[in-house]
């Protein structure tokens, strides 16, 4: 099968891309849509650097074919915040030293974002279990866990204040 036109909603915008069915979603995002936030780490669905949100699920985009993503709603790190308006999770990672080299960070934050949607008030253990599919070789995870818990607390406090 040659190239097809696939339509997906990426970070709220409808995009059409030409790709072969066998192309991996991570390369469609990075090379065709210039969304280089999600990274290629292991490319074997272990490390989680390529994590994006697809139809309300955290997925490893190195293990999704372009054809599978046709019609999907996708959110990448670029859809969560930008340099002028960081997402609460991005602020928290900055504040609590949740990153060093930064390679795993887009995947970590995208995954943490989904986790907090499903479990807005996680325990430390639940955070650790929730990010078990994302590897970090710098931080030893302590500050990542701290960052996610801090972001959760901040989001919850803002929600309470709004009520």
């Amino acid at each position, binding site marked *: 099968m040659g190239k097809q036109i696939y339509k997906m909603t990426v970070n709220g915008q409808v995009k059409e891309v030409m790709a072969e*069915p066998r192309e991996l979603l991570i390369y469609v995002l990075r090379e065709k849509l210039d969304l280089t936030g999600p990274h290629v780490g292991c490319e074997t669905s272990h490390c989680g650097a390529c994590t994006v949100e697809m139809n309300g*699920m*955290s*997925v490893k985009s190195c293990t999704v074919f372009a*054809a*599978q993503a046709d019609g999907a709603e996708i959110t990448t790190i670029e859809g969560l915040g930008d340099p002028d308006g960081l997402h609460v999770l991005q602020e928290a990672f900055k504040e609590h030293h949740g990153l060093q080299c930064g390679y795993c960070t887009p995947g970590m934050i995208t*995954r943490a974002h989904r986790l907090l949607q499903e479990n807005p008030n996680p325990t430390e253990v639940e955070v650790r279990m929730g990010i*078990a599919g994302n590897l970090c070789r710098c931080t030893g995870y302590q500050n990542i866990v701290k960052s996610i818990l801090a972001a959760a607390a901040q989001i919850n406090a803002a929600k309470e204040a709004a009520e």
Partner: protein
Amino acid sequence: MIPAAFEYHRPSDVAGALSLLSTHGDDARVLAGGHSLIPMMKLRMASVEHLVDLQDVAELKGISVADGHVTLGAMVTQHSLIESAELAEAAPIVREAALQIADPQVRYMGTVGGNVANGDPGNDMPGLMQCLDARFTLQGPNGSREVAARAYYEAAYFTARADDEILTQISFAVPVGGYAYEKQKRKVGDYATAACGVVLAKEGALCTSASVAMTNLADVPVWSEAAGAALVGTDCGPEAVKTAVAAAVADIDPAEDNRGPVAFKRHVAGIIIGRAISRAWSRA
């Protein structure tokens, strides 16, 4: 790591998927969550000319608990198994096992049908389904048939399913009594070095029925009839557990690999089986 080219199909029902399989024969494979098949295609260990993606087949996505039976559609994800309150109530061992599979991202995509169907000895659901004496529904061009989980696995990646059939449904009686799924793995996301599922029932101080099945300790899942029999009529005390563990370990046939030599695997299996029995008994 780009797989060979393929034709992609996305039927909206089982009939459509079956017709694609009939047309393309063994050049076609169905795709569920893809977290076994896609890595194999990337490594070019699996070659698939026609990929039949089941993501739009809504009839395969249901979980139902009725009349003492649990029915799972093949496309139910591990994540959905974990999130289902009625399943957690009826058969909490399924949730306990699913939580030990891979990692959150993989569990959003990975399905129970894919896990049991392809015959990978490392997968956890086949052993669990043998423990629960589940039945698999296979639909093919000439209708559907049921195969017991305990009769489905022939060798690694060889099963009772024919090339033109799709495993569509898994069903089992709501288990009674205590349960446990214990798994030893080297790291999150790894396959088991040894894993064991146990369900057992207790009346008064004695065990009245027991089922013991193991994962990744042979090239197929292993249901140990002898281990279950060794527990029935006992108080599941240390002596009874020891006898049952010895019976279970006699039924396995682990191979040496990067998880360790055979003697080590037998040792780990013994510990995991003993823990599973004791924990199931404590919950009975």
